[in-house]
């Protein structure tokens, strides 16, 4: 399940439940005292829409993982002291409270781990070719909160 042996970045796009605990364990290094994890979960409401019961994520399969890797690269260029970075995104149909995205960043100190994790999820949302459809009791539609896709190297937080 983990990535290439020896690599310090782990990116994954999968229809299976995300390996949150494994990613968190994997990110721990003897040189790093701080591990920050962000999990995005399916929420029962979005901007202006109540009673959401499920989400469906679609991706540009060939380019989603490379764009996740670019997000990790942009974090490393800002915080060279980072230890490991995991960026995992689930696609397909997700029910309420299921985990859609996981970001893990480890660093010697907590300030960098927090800042890098925040940067990664912000940049992921703005750059990775993934689209979310919301389903509620009465119908379904694409999420209204969307971003014109940008390149990770152009995202300045």
């Amino acid at each position, binding site marked *: 399940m983990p990535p290439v042996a020896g690599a310090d970045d782990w990116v994954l796009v999968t229809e299976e439940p995300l390996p949150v605990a494994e990613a968190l364990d994997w990110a721990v290094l003897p040189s790093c005292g701080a591990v920050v994890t962000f999990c995005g979960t399916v929420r029962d409401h979005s901007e202006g829409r109540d009673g959401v019961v499920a989400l469906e994520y679609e991706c540009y399969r060939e380019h989603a993982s490379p764009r996740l890797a670019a997000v990790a690269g942009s974090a490393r260029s800002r915080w060279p002291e980072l230890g490991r970075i995991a960026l995992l995104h689930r696609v397909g149909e997700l029910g309420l409270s299921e985990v859609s995205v996981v970001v893990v960043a480890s660093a010697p100190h907590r300030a960098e781990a927090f800042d890098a994790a925040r940067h990664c999820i912000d940049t992921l949302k703005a750059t990775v070719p993934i*689209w979310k459809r919301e389903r509620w009791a009465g119908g379904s539609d694409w999420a209204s909160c*969307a971003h014109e896709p940008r390149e990770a190297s152009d995202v300045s937080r």
Partner: protein
Amino acid sequence: MPLLRVFGPARDAAGTAGEQFPGADVGAVLDAACERYGPGFADVLRRSAVWLNGEPATRAHAVGDDDEVAVLPPVSGG
């Protein structure tokens, strides 16, 4: 012929995930798609980014048989 891939709302408007279109550049491929899919697709296209083989592209980029043009409406991952 180049392949056109369309995602999210663009896929809904096109009624398909992708097909081949004739054309020597990105603009020609997109124009052919608008003609086939109609004004609903053209509306989505106007607020979408266009990639050629995974990189941002303009209408003027030349395309050939093995190239892939993609229409990316605003993304909403996370």
